[in-house]
């Protein structure tokens, strides 16, 4: 085989690989990109039912109700609007009323059915999306509780 042909072989292999990867990426992107939404977005009907989203905000005070078999109902608020959340499972260690939370799931008939509630490593850490959501709702008082990300997730 000539030098040129050998090169072509590898270029062809690389091309095929890239084509496969691109196909995989494009199909996977469609299915696995999850948009971040706030309670206000949901209240203003900017979220369709059955669309997978991440919901972020604060866990409303006095809203957490434990049910049978690890079922938990609570409300997530961005201080302007509030959305009820239904979740079955054990909540992350740092889940608390009045604290920031990010839940992933689908909106079904006005109730957010979460299948995942995300944990953070530090109780003072506020997910930036949540801070943003509260800011957008115009309720931010500037007393950001140590949101420098390195203090929370530093050790990873």
């Amino acid at each position, binding site marked *: 085989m000539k030098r040129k042909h050998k090169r072509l072989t590898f270029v062809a*292999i690389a091309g095929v690989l890239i084509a496969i990867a691109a196909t995989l990426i494009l199909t996977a*992107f469609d*299915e*696995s990109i999850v948009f971040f939404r706030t309670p206000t977005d949901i209240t203003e009907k900017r979220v369709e039912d059955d669309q997978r989203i991440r919901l972020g905000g604060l866990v409303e005070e006095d809203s957490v109700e434990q049910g049978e078999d690890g079922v938990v109902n609570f409300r997530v608020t961005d201080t302007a609007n509030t959305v009820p959340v239904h979740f079955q499972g*054990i909540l992350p260690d740092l889940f608390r009323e009045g604290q920031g939370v990010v839940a992933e799931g689908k909106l079904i008939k006005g109730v957010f059915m979460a299948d995942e509630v995300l944990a953070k490593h530090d109780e003072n850490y506020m997910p930036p999306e949540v801070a943003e959501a509260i800011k957008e709702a115009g309720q931010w008082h500037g007393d950001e509780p140590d949101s*420098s990300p390195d203090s929370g997730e530093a050790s*990873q």
Partner: protein
Amino acid sequence: MIPGLGDATFGIAELGHFALILAMFVAVAQAVLPLTGAARNHGPWMAFARPTAIVQLLLIAFSFGCLTYAFMISDFSLAIVYQNSHSDKPMLYKISGTWGNHEGSMLLWVLIVSIFGGAVALFGSNLPPSLRARVLGIQALIAIGFYLFILFTSNPFERMIPPPLNGAGLNPLLQDPGLAFHPPMLYLGYVGFSMAFSFAIAALLEGRVDAAWGRWVRPWTLAAWAFLTCGIALGSWWAYYELGWGGWWFWDPVENASFIPWLTGTALLHSATMVEKRDTMKGWTIFLAILTFSLSLLGTFLVRSGVLTSVHAFATDPERGVFILFLLIIVTGGSLALFAWRGPAMRNTGVFQPVSREGALLVNNLIMTTAAAAVLLGTLYPLFLDAIDGGKVSVGPPYFNTVFIPLMIPMIAAMAVGPMLGWKRADLGQALKRLWLAFIATGVSAIAIWAFVADGPVLGMVGLAMAAWLAVGTLVELSERIRLFREPLSSSLTRIARTTRASWGMTLGHLGLAIAVAGMSGAGGWKQEAIQTMMPGEHVDLGGYTFTFEGATEGQGPNYALTRGTFVVTRDGEPVVTMYPENRRYPVRSMPTTEAAIHTLFSGDLYAVIGDPDGSDGAYVTRIYWNPLVAWMWAGSLIMAAAAGISLSDRRFRVGAPRRRKAAAETDKTGPAAAKA
């Protein structure tokens, strides 16, 4: 002296700060003089490289020591000690607190850069003087970037006046041995690739790459790769037992940031072999070295700067973010420009056919870099979309699984064949024929899993079959190499003894991956979980085991209150183990942690978690997991890291090795290529 700080500890931090500044100036000398000297072929200037590298190492080590001391004695007048430590912390976590924060970890980073530089200065006697001078000069340039970053944006020696009485850092989740050593391991890996990078840039400046260069680059890459492997495994293990979800890999951006350089580092490891042994693929290897270190930098900074969670984290500290971006652009842009300019001058003498050992290594490289690009894309896409105001998104595990796993299947298929092929040209059909045993093993394991293990997903089955293929294929290659059953056993044993450590490294590394793949497939495919409220006496059946809840008790630990559950696990009526998961609540931070009870068996992990009480009748929310084969994953990772260590100790990498080059070359002939010929 500042009033109110008049104790003996006052001076230590200032000394550390001073040593840090001094180290930067020494690094400037270490960069400027040797690099200029090498360009002008001026011997005495080049000779500056070694002493300055050692002095720089001593200074930065002293500085780091000062900071560690401040953490050990809980000197809360230092801002980062106040923020990240507490006088009630055990000593181990006081010390690990030194690098468990942004500023301290950057100091650790630059310390490791200097340690590697010092190692080249001390042990690099057999390097050509100009190459050594250039490597150390570039290593110093990298260090300077970090010194500036530390001093201007993240100074660990900043004081708080007046000093607070006690620290604020008592996050119990982070007080964990796995996490204490996870960052240093990762950094040893990241920074280890800086050596490959420095050698690559030095080679571009020198305008040539030879086998000796490959022999130097490979051990550094192996060491870095081994550390990175350990670091990633440690992080995953921590997430597994501490977060209490029974999960071990979440495709979290922080995890990806360390995994991407691992992928390109693996490619580099394999292409450096070709430079060393076959005098080919030089330009590509240099490119990979640049790429891997750039991705390491990107990884460090993505995690450290907080941009990963959201680009708006820049707003909290725009200085850091901008500095970071700037440094990245200089390092990556500068080195790629140099590569574009000088790279084409690299002459490859080794020619080969597409079907050959070289071809197989190249296929490895192509797949690894494609996979790295795909993971990088998924990790950066949310950042990109947010930057152009396209909305906030997260790219979840489904993306990574869909893209990554299909790429790994041909990769593993090729991994068993590659070592069977000879250098330069080989017969693929012949190699496949010699792998008949591996084909049988793959088929048998696929059928066995399909027949005996119920409800398995196809992917899990494919994964296990691939693991069998790789393991048996690797063993076939080993037995051919030692001519097992073809020659008398004694002759085979002599061949075993004569096998180079580098070959052992390859064999063990591939076996380690086979074991890890089996673990991932088992745990990914057949994991079972049950979440429920349990009364004392109730039981749950999972994975063939019966978990009986015996109730929970409340108690007190040293500085926390705890709930301890008791589970008796039986299999077919026979007792297996009694498990005691805990739920701890630390009053200082009013923060609970989950202490999962894990019992590791050969076939899988029993994993139990106790949650909150449900009512007052002794019922608790509990989570039980059966994670088949999960421990194999970490065992396999450790074998891979150990294999890199064994390969690293190969005699030809040792000091003075080039003089024994002939001897080494002859030992290499015991490889399959020579054996076949």
